[in-house]
């Protein structure tokens, strides 16, 4: 472990280690992620794996260092200049922090791109006892290694069907190359031609399509035949589930879909789930409804949003009340129809 002088340096060292072919990560909270955004962008551009864990606090700015919020989703998804795709994951339990970070490294290395892994104060300051299902394997690698054929005319950023280029690491024999945060051609040399930019941007985004084959199936809870569906992310998953149970005790059924993957997402599961609901509720711990905004644009749904900014936390009771309220609306609609 290296204690860096600041978050820019920490993310820089992760980028450097990634360039040298080692799995590396750093962690931060809130404002630190803002400082890392230029380096994350460089990781996207120069196709270097990085894992950045952000244990969310309340914001903006220095914000509420000792309080919880889920308000860094937007910066995780969109922070940084340019058309800059990145993997965003969010753990909903401590177990998922442990297993999910392994998946984060696998994806980052295989697809040569940064992963932002969101946790929050609730998860970060909680102690739980779990059995370990999969030990961390320090020699694990998901790198796409160049074949002898690839090395005959090696292009570090060779455009392939999946967008993933075979990756030779400094210190290995066979080829030499430079990488840059400037736009570049397949060789890695700077190139600002319009067609090169189009092609390479497309390559960087195409990796995210290919990645969908490696994503875990989302988890679905509750009554399959319910009309009311919920989706949420991160630490409130437990509280929301509890709210569903309370509503169920009063005879109101509901179901929930959640995934550790925020971007990319196994979309067909979400789409099918939403198609099977008459009403969708999205509770989350921020003022804007950042996750709801993503869901609305991605699946063209019109959910009922519940925003719990800052200190307020998602309360199971309020979730239950909302489920019951929506149930009454649906019943009234059905009666008047």
């Amino acid at each position, binding site marked *: 472990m290296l204690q860096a*002088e600041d978050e820019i340096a920490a993310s*820089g060292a992760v*980028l*450097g280690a990634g*360039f*040298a*072919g080692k799995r*590396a990560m750093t962690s931060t909270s809130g404002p630190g992620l803002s400082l890392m955004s230029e380096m994350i962008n460089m990781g996207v551009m120069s196709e270097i794996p990085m894992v950045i864990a952000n244990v969310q606090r309340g914001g903006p700015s220095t914000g509420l260092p000792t309080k919880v919020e889920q308000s860094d989703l937007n910066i995780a998804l969109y922070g940084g200049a340019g058309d800059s795709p990145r993997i965003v994951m969010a753990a909903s339990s401590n177990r998922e922090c442990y297993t999910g970070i392994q998946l984060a490294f696998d994806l980052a290395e295989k697809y040569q791109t940064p992963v932002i892994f969101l946790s929050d104060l609730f998860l970060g300051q909680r102690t739980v006892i779990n059995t370990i299902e999969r030990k961390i394997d320090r020699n694990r690698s998901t790198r796409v290694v160049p074949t002898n054929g690839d090395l005959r005319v090696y292009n570090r950023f060779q455009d392939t069907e999946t967008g993933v280029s075979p990756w030779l690491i400094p210190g290995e024999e066979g080829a030499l190359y430079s990488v840059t945060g400037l736009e570049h051609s397949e060789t890695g040399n700077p190139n600002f031609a319009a067609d090169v930019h189009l092609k390479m941007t497309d390559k960087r985004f195409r990796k995210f399509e290919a990645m969908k084959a490696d994503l875990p199936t989302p988890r679905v809870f509750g009554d399959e035949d319910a009309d009311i569906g919920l989706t949420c992310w991160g630490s409130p998953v437990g509280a929301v589930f509890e709210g569903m149970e309370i509503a169920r005790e009063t005879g109101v059924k509901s179901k929930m879909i959640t995934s550790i993957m925020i971007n990319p997402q196994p979309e067909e599961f979400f789409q099918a789930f939403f198609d099977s609901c008459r009403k969708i509720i999205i509770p989350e711990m921020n003022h804007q409804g950042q996750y709801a905004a993503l869901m609305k644009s991605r699946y063209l749904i019109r959910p009922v949003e519940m925003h719990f900014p800052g200190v307020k936390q998602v309360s199971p009771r309020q979730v239950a009340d909302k489920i019951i309220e929506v149930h009454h609306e649906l019943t009234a609609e059905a009666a008047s129809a």
Partner: protein
Amino acid sequence: MSLLQKRRVLESFERARATKARKHRDSLPTWCPGCGHFTPLQGLYEAMETLKIPVKDFVLVSGIGCSGRFPFFVRGFGLHALHGRAIPVATGVKLANPDLQVVVVGGDGDGVGIGGGHLPHAARSNFDITYLLLDNAIYGLTKGQTSPTSPMGMVSGTSPYGNISKPLNASTLALAYGATFVARVFSQERDQVTEMITKAIAHKGFSFLHVLSPCVEFHKTVTYESVKEEVCLLPADYNANDRAEALVLAESAEPVYTGLFLEEKSPSYHERVAEITSKF
């Protein structure tokens, strides 16, 4: 580019070709003819040859600027990083694989301006990397703004009435931060530059080379002629083993000394890590 300029570029390349080091050249430098950065590039080629560094183990990390273009001109692995952030990126490379020979190159804006906060930490940790700071006292790439090493009074787009902030002295900073190898050279002195780059890379620990490297395109006052007037070799009997004395000499403005200010033996970061890990 005029014909004359083109001829000068070609001539400078003929010179480069003629040396034993030509196999270390990658694509043609894009610098202006006469740019101070050519000499350290040539010096690096020669140092790589002298030190027999296998290209597959050579990583050049740079910042952004004219100086930052180095990796594209050298055969080896290159990481053209972000403006001001070459040092932390290089420490990551070195941590990940200590067998790699890591050299960092950056300009004065890059290294003591935007990235000035990283130098102290790489130096005090004694990472076994070499840092070439190409100081032209101006932002070259962005066409001539005042930099943190620009002299007072310098007129530029960002200081139209003359620079009113005192310049930083990069050699003094490196000494104060605890770098274990600190030297200053002048770009016009090819042999001196090559010799010091070779020594700096051979040094175990953080080596800092301050290259006075004029920008012929934009600098009106810091020129080959002006620097030549100011510089003077360190006294022949100077020993380069006393940091306090080195600081005094590095700070001197009349004359501006060139040569090796300090060379100190001290375990590198990686050796210290190895010492800890050997206990487990």
